[in-house]
């Protein structure tokens, strides 16, 4: 390669590396601000501020959903496997909302670390499948469950 071109090329690549490092440093410094939501573990350990609007994200804990009879009020727990946070919400939940689904709730933590949410968003995962496949998989799981409980009735 022509020496002058070589010089220009290395100059450009050097500049690109420099910009890359600068951006990487800036982004890692802003890590917490770029994260869309706090996980239940972060809320439990007190990383999330109280009395400001925050987002909490995680999976809706199975069997934790309580609906009010005469209003749109709902209460449910959001967990990440280690910790759980109670969420109170009044309004229409997104179509994808269900137990076991990933969600993000926006609201304020009260003194009991309960999130009083004014917006609940459903998080979609990267899995796509036709309804028949999903039903078939449910069936297989159910059969496995039945088989294991039949094999060890005392375990139940």
């Amino acid at each position, binding site marked *: 390669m022509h020496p002058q071109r070589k010089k220009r090329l290395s100059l450009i690549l050097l500049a690109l590396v420099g910009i890359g490092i600068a951006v990487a440093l800036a982004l890692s410094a802003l890590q917490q601000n770029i994260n869309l939501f706090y996980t239940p573990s972060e809320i439990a350990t007190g990383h999330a501020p109280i009395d400001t609007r925050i987002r909490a994200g995680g999976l809706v804990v199975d069997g934790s959903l309580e609906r009010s009879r005469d209003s749109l009020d709902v209460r449910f727990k959001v967990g990440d496997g280690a910790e759980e946070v109670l969420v109170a919400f009044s309004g229409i939940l997104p179509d994808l909302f269900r137990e076991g689904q990933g969600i993000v709730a926006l609201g304020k933590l009260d003194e009991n670390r309960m999130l009083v949410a004014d917006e609940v*968003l459903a998080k979609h995962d*990267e899995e796509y*499948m036709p309804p028949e496949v999903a039903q078939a998989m449910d069936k297989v799981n159910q059969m496995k469950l039945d088989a294991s409980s039949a094999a060890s009735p005392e375990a139940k």
Partner: protein
Amino acid sequence: MNWSFFHKLGSPKWFFEISGRWLPWFTAAGVLLLLVGSVWGLFFAPQDYQQGNSFRIIYIHVPAAFVAQSCYIMLAVAGIVGLVWRMKLAHVALKCAAPIGAWMTFIALVTGAIWGKPTWGTYWVWDARLTSMLILLFLYFGIIALGQAISNRETSAKATAVLAIVGVVNIPIIKYSVDWWNTLHQPATFKITEKPAMPVEMWLPLLLMVLGFYALFTVSLLMRMRVEILRRENRTRWAREAMEKML
């Protein structure tokens, strides 16, 4: 390595001739792929078990997002070639590709918002993926505006090349935003190392659509570049002859 191909690219006349021969093939492939892919994806592919039919917007959203990012990488490569080898054709490619990339980014953002309302419950959220994609749109706008604002052709080419190269750091940020931070946008369904998290009857039409979008991008880029080359070379004899042939 044989570099004669690369050096020939420096000649606008050569590029004009060869692109004229390529165009019909890319056009035919693009029309065929988009037609088959969209009919298959929109009518015959199965529904999703959670989202129902609304997932079908993936057949527009994902190809547009792919092309939007690839197009930006192409701008940066063209910028480097233009700055290092002073190749005029690279500047033509950079100038002509920017508006196409901007449109692709816009399509990806709009289709994502339309899908987001029924699925997430909101059109827009300031998470890392959506925000970095919006920055990509603004980078395209910046390149277009900078190219138009400077009337001197040489200076304008250099300035847009520098902006295109600097902006390329945003591409890995878009790609890995869903892994580095927690976002509302889901992680990638398609990874090079793993099987896609989607059955074959869903991703095959998507693959056709992606290839079709790339063909569409190539066709529109070549057509724009050919017009731009004719405009720049309108004092030369071959360009005049080519224009007369078109009339």
